[in-house]
């Protein structure tokens, strides 16, 4: 079966939240049939790599199959958090869309129609 590489934004949605210098990112496929594919490809290591340039030290993924959702928790990513950061977005709220820019390989049959 032919596969295509697409950004997560085509397949899933996300919201970012913070507590101190720690970020959480939900990842929710529009189609629950994509849950296993995301579980396989959107690994802790790949998500950590997205934030390595900011000094992130650890990423933990919590799987919620009953909700068809994942929760990623990334440590030491906010360069000081809402209080200490020099970043305009000290809360890190925009990072949900950095996660959604990550690409995954999907069989064409599972791709949503535009």
């Amino acid at each position, binding site marked *: 079966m032919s596969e295509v590489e697409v950004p997560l*934004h085509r397949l899933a*949605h*996300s*919201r970012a*939240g*913070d*507590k*101190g*210098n*720690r970020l*959480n990112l*939900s990842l*929710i496929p*529009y189609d629950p049939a994509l849950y296993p594919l995301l579980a396989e490809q959107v690994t802790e290591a790949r998500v950590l790599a997205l934030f390595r*340039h*900011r*000094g992130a030290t650890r990423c933990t993924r*919590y799987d*919620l199959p*009953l*909700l*068809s*959702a994942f*929760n990623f*928790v990334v440590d030491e990513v906010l*360069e000081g958090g*809402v*209080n*200490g950061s*020099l*970043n*305009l*977005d000290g809360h890190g*709220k*925009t*990072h949900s869309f*950095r996660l959604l820019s990550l690409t995954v390989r999907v069989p064409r049959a599972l791709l949503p129609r535009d």
Partner: protein
Amino acid sequence: MFLLGNGAGFSGDRVDAPIPVLRTLIARGLPAAMFFETLGERTVALAHLEKRRDPELGYEPMLERLLAPILAPAQAHRIPLLGNWGAANPPAAARAVARLALAQGLPGLRIGLVEGDDVTPLVAGGQLPVHEADAGLDMGAWSLIAANAYIGAEPLVEALARGAEVVVAGRTSDPALAIAPLAHHFGWRFDDWQALALGAAAGHLLECGSQVSGGVFWDPGVKDIPDPADIGFPIAEVTAEGGLVITKAENTGGLVDLRTVKEQLLYELHDPAHYVTPDVVLDITRCTLAQEGPDRVAVRGLVGHPRPETLKVTASFEGSWLGEGEVSVAGPNALARARATADVLLERLRRRGLAVRARVDLIGVASVHDSDAGALWRGYEGPEPPDIRIRLAVESARRDDADQAAREVLALLCCGTAGTGGARWRVTPRILTRSHLVLRERVPTRVTVREAREFAA
């Protein structure tokens, strides 16, 4: 069934949002309450600084504006209003509500005041352990502004039991504002972890206002919502049997569906098995959702665990300054001019020996996702943006150094690259927060319930 509406999700939320929520609660004619969450970690610190300047300030600045249109109809329909509007100064907030009530001809309005969350002396005396997440923070030369404990729902229930029609609190936990009217109505005990889990989930889903009904959800062309200029704020339907349905104000925009509820359920959550509140530890690992109609989502499978012995405390400190400056470039060669400007700014700070930590953003190339070192804009290889804003941000323990660094951006109006314009600069005090833990018995709360005419006296 009991209806719980939310009227604000943060300090700075849309001030006209509570009106359609109250209208919906009244139209449905069921027992109901509304709560307002207007206090963040930084908000409380800023409020303490306000209170220092004026002893009658330091509470939510939008309090009167939020309550003015709803106070009389809420009282007439026996719908209590609860909020952590008190911030650093709950007594002043209660007096402000009393003055508003008198001005509206409601001298008999019963106002409940909840105090006791201020634990500044305990932190100042070094008596509280630092929360593990902040163990590495070195406060050095910083000075303590204030410290507040996140208190639970019990004192709020006491205020309601004593007839309060408006409950004014300070640093309550967000879910406590939702748990309290439910516990009061259903007579929940504070060791009934299943019931409290239901309340905590309702609070968690509603505490950020429109975030469960279309706010920070809509993504044009991808996740559209009706009328984003008038998102309806959320309402929870809770039953004695443990039913929970999330819906929203009638005749408004926004939407409530599986996608909006999932995003908010996981918002600011870490371990989904342990969402800690002062009243209960919520576990959503067995939670399921079902769309039960338009803008109606049922939440099932919530599990509660015993509450922690300790309360979280947020201590805020001051002691450094943030300097910021911005200029713009646009048109041909904008990217090269912006990069050169960034490098020259950093070089100027170095040559002048200003004691600052600095960061430069190229807004339009990379900013919010970038690191302090500018890894993304330095490595950017895409097409040239038509318009770029260069932002310098510095931190310094010395106000003058922060100011002089920010003014280096201003100087670019004459010394910068060709076609540099639109300078802005400012210096503001920085606030740092640190979390501590305190045994709950060390945070005694006080509840006062009086009529508006007595509070205003």
